[in-house]
């Protein structure tokens, strides 16, 4: 989960998120250097004594400042497109979970092996135990195995919602009347938090998502089916 005053991305829990963090670092470095150059140009503009108003025909400079931004954009676009298509790959998922957004809770359906359906409500402050996270913890977590490709089918029953888990690099809109699909493979066990990411009414900020990722061997023993 995010810690207080965190600006950067959370640690990656899936290969796609690792790629996204790499891409973010790459783009941020380019942006930093461009900003540095612009800041220097601004400083020069503010401190120059040159006031020649008859300057014209700077063909070489115009060529450079046309070609160079095009090259920079290509350097950013190529990794971006690579990750875009990588994220769209569907790697023969082992498990399919349906996630349905409501105002203001999520319903999860495990229908592959039986008909487990449950709601996931945020824990109200009065019901929090010591150590629980305010506005993040829920009554029923989504329990999933690690190192297994998982398909999430996301939709909504009423208004727009968005199912997001930053550490997995996931954010998928829940649209009424439409089924959106996203797949992921978690690489390490733990409890991971997300929040609804599309404005959906008064309690939009109070319908979090909590994934509990456990080793496959323990998942196969069936803890999730004993709810």
């Amino acid at each position, binding site marked *: 989960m995010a*810690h207080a005053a965190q*600006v*950067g*991305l959370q*640690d990656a829990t899936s290969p796609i998120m690792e790629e996204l963090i790499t891409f973010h*670092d790459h783009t941020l*470095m380019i942006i930093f*250097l461009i900003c*540095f150059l612009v800041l220097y140009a601004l400083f020069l503009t503010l401190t120059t004594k040159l006031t020649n108003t008859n300057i014209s025909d700077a063909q070489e400079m115009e060529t450079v400042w046309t070609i160079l931004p095009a090259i920079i954009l290509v350097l950013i676009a190529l990794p971006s497109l690579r990750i875009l298509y990588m994220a769209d790959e569907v790697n023969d998922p082992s498990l399919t979970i349906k996630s349905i957004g409501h105002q203001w809770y999520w319903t999860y359906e495990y229908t592959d092996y039986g008909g487990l359906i449950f709601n996931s409500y945020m824990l109200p402050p009065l019901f929090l135990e010591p150590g629980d996270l305010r506005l993040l913890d829920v009554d029923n977590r989504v329990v999933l195995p690690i190192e297994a490709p998982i398909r999430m089918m996301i939709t909504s029953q009423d208004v727009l919602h968005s199912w997001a888990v930053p550490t997995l690099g996931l954010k998928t809109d829940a649209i009424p009347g439409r089924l959106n699909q996203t797949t992921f493979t978690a690489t390490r066990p733990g409890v991971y938090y997300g929040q609804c990411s599309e404005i959906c009414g008064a309690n939009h900020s109070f319908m979090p998502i909590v994934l509990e990722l456990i080793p496959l061997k323990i998942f196969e023993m069936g803890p999730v089916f004993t709810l």
Partner: protein
Amino acid sequence: MAAPPEPGEPEERKLLGFLDVENTPCARHSILYGSLGSVVAGFGHFLFTSRIRRSCDVGVGGFILVTLGCWFHCRYNYAKQRIQERIAREEIKKKILYEGTHLDPERKHNGSSSN
């Protein structure tokens, strides 16, 4: 990368308050070499030409070029290393899983080399 500092650990410092050069691979290395390159280029140009303004321009250009060059070189090697680590991890997993069976990668390799 995003874990909060534990009590007792030194606070993480960020360049200009927001650039996390400590935890971003290759960032600290690139910025340091870029700064060095900038000083060398700018000061060297000034020694030869005694033009302050132009030397500052050369210094800034040197910083950008050296930082970018170091960054791409380091990130390329880092990406190669990550791929090699992933291949090694997969092979170790396969070895543990299939050791002693007909799918053992070592048996396949020894079988093909003896043939």
